[in-house]
């Protein structure tokens, strides 16, 4: 029986191959093996959203994803979307509105927020609240986070309208 499996994934654009213990969830793999400590574990049972990252372009719970199950898949983390500039506008909006305090929920929140922009470009406040409802933040009152995402959506809509 295989308790460790050789796994190859495209991690933030770079192909990596590692032997990974089957029980290791993706967040632990990224943090412990790859030094990508931006993804956080707040519960490890799928509720808090601190571990939100992308697998094959879709946001998922890193803590409920086995690293070995990512063989052949594309993984994007907060480090990746920061370095590529993909999240820059959202990060800027979060910064401007102080949509973070301790920052522990923030990487997951950003991953969710940029996914929202992609999937629900016309979302209103209520829908924004719904979309991020799986991401727990103890520090902010969510209000500023909603403000930040709304601001990005509005600016994108304006740009879209102009072109």
């Amino acid at each position, binding site marked *: 029986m295989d308790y460790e499996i050789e796994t190859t994934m495209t991690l933030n654009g770079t192909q990596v191959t590692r032997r990974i*213990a089957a*029980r*290791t969830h993706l967040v632990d793999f990224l*943090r412990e093996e790859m*030094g*990508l*400590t*931006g*993804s*956080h574990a*707040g*519960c*490890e*049972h*799928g*509720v*808090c959203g*601190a571990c939100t990252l992308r697998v094959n372009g879709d946001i998922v719970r890193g803590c409920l994803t086995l690293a070995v199950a990512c063989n052949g898949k594309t993984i994007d*983390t*907060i*480090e990746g979307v*920061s370095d590529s500039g993909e*999240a820059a506008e959202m*990060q800027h909006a*979060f*910064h*401007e*509105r*102080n*949509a*973070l*305090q*301790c*920052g*522990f*929920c*923030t*990487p997951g929140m*950003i991953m969710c927020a940029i996914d929202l922009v992609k999937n629900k470009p016309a979302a209103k*406040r209520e829908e924004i*609240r*719904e979309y*991020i*409802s*799986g*991401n*727990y*933040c*103890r*520090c*902010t*009152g*969510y*209000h*500023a*986070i*909603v403000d930040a995402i709304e601001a990005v959506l509005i600016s994108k809509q304006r740009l879209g309208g102009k072109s």
Partner: protein
Amino acid sequence: MSQDIVNSTTTTPVAPVVDRPLQAPGTRPQTGYIGKSEPRANAKRLLQGRGSYTDDLRFPRLAQVAYFRSPHAHAKIKKLDLSKARVAPGVIAVVDGYAVRDICSPWMGVLSHLKGIRSPLQFPLAIERARWQGEPVAAVVAETRAQAEDARDLVEAEWEELPVVVDMRDALAGQTVIHEELGDNICFHRELDTGEVDAAFAKADCVVEESYSFGRHTGVCLEPRIILADYNAGEHSLTVHHNTQSPHMMQQLFAKHFDIPEANIQVIAKDVGGGFGIKVHTYPDEMCTVALSIMLRRPVKFVADRMESMVSDIHAREHRVKIRLAADKAGNILAFDLDDLTAIGPYSVYPRTSGIEGNQVVNLTGGPYKHKQYRAKLDAVFTNKNVTCQYRAVGHPIAAAVTEGIVDAAAIKLGIDPAEFRRRNLIRDDAYPYTFPSGIRFEKLSHHKCLDKLLEIMDYPALRAEQAALRKKGIHRGIGLASIIEVTSPSAAFYGVGGAPISAQDGATLRLDVSGMVTVLCGVTEQGQGTDAIFGQIAATAVGVSLDKVRVLTGDTRVTPYGGGTWASRGAGIGGEAVLQSGKALKSNILDVAAAMLNVKKVTLDIIDNTIIDTTTGEKKLPLAEVGRVAYFRPDTLPMNFQSELTVTRHFVPREYAFTFANGVQGSLVEVDPDTGFIKMLKHWCVGDCGTVINPLLVDEQTRGGIVQGIGGAMFEECMYDERGQMLNANLADYLVPMSFEMPDIVTAHIETPTKTSELGAKGAGENGTAGAPAAIMNAINDALLPFNAKVRDMPFTPERVLKALGKV
């Protein structure tokens, strides 16, 4: 400080702003960054996932510990067999309470100023007996956390279950006693009586009485508790990376209980993922982790996972309160009479004790009002549940809810609108300084200004009209108000006088660097509140540099001045003042150097925008970088007997008042579905007075976060236990924290009544939101339920409780 901010909002427009100049004497006033919504510099790296939280650090030879915890609420450890665990793969050591006891001395959570408070000695790992489900019993150290958990599953324990005390009323009755040596289950008892209370009730036209209950909560910081202890036998030194709110306090405690000289101990708290009072206590598992590092002579890390956090992070706020209020028919409150019973778990938590929360309820109940008679009784009792201790807004949400709940009850009975009733009874804005019947003194509060502003931003009359119209259509909205007072920036009267090794004072060191930049070091810590950011703003303003020139460092006992850290909303009021004073001193010293360089009188110079200028002409004289260069590299060019001092430290501690009280008022609009008992929070408003607002952007979201935490307690959160003392919802799926979808938009506004006890004038702003939200929500729900003659009194207000109140189930 900006002239217009102060004039437009301060309660005393007559008091000229020059009372509290933010500039060095003899220099021109500068607006600076105080009052500006500046985004936080340190937030950018967090946004990119580049924080350095304790669990992000990497160490050679790092071992990880997992704890075997008591599955029982009260049981004798008959046998503990660690042999199988010891030989499991990757295991480094497995120890029990006896082994650790030799390394770490026990502690006792009592304070001398809480007269009569008692608690037994507590050890890092339970010895002979476990007294709550989740109490650590054995420690398993392994190469990885997973291996430690694997081995933990091999620990074999034989237990003899003992009778448990779960209900606080049973604890008070004392049929079963948890600690035989104490004789009963009472940890702390307090009574307060101004006298004449019975007389006030006898002559009252209106007497109302209510009983409220409050669920147990826990903090649920998204980042769990983490400690990484690294003992170095070669120098008998201890480095602890710890996501604590109070590094210097922990340094003291480690020194004392591990018998290591304080100077050999460094506690570092870099990025901390939320605190809320959870990370400011002595936890047995954390003390044990340090002990293990000493025993094993290597770094050992403990990361609480979420499920063990739920049974080991402190809980708070389990209260049953009976309260009575007497008023005359003109609507004047005459007296409050309070009876509070609270359950604190099997130990009073060290070193802050578990008596403070109840004590605060006694101190604060009735706080905004001008009655003269007050009587209160408190019992804090031991139970076999997890321990409770200070959690954000300690005691405030209880005091505010019972006060504001009974105030509404009186208003309704007297037929007076709740807003009007508050207006009649809130302490007048010109009545300060004021001594409240519980003995606490208020320097200056602004209840009426806040209430007026709140009613204005809510458009209260329109809301009432809308409510009436909707009621006719079967839509049941409720409007709730809650005025509160908030303990902030405490003096040594809070802990120090009782013997706790906790600094009420804080210090700040400011240094002008060669390039003209300013480095700030402060003992207050950052858990996301924006402490670093406001210190930057204050320092930049005080010295005269632009914000981009300031760097702030906190959270390292070896680097920062001595201080208390972050709790009780003390960061801005105490740390901020220390930074301000230090900044003024640094500026003065910089000007000394500049005057020597330019060979002019110091009074002719000022620093504006990183530049030394001539105050009379405004002419730019020198860039600060030039001052730095000369002071550090070319002191030979300065006059012979001149020595530059471009690093200065100043401290601050409030002394005049025990607490720098802040105040505020909240409004809540809810809609109750009388068929389902579901409550929709439509909107929430808060007007707070935290004195000088240093950064509105930060205060606003701090307030909102606090409100949402308060809403959590009112609507969702409760640590539930069964009759065997087993926690039933010790995970995040079942313990319901507030999430974005159910939360309302929250409108905030400020009144600024700067405290005169400091030059900065800032009071705290961290707990106002949490303090008042449950009260406002409860009153709003009960306002909606008024036509049904129904009322809720037990938090959290679950749909079932609402349906029960409505008689539907």
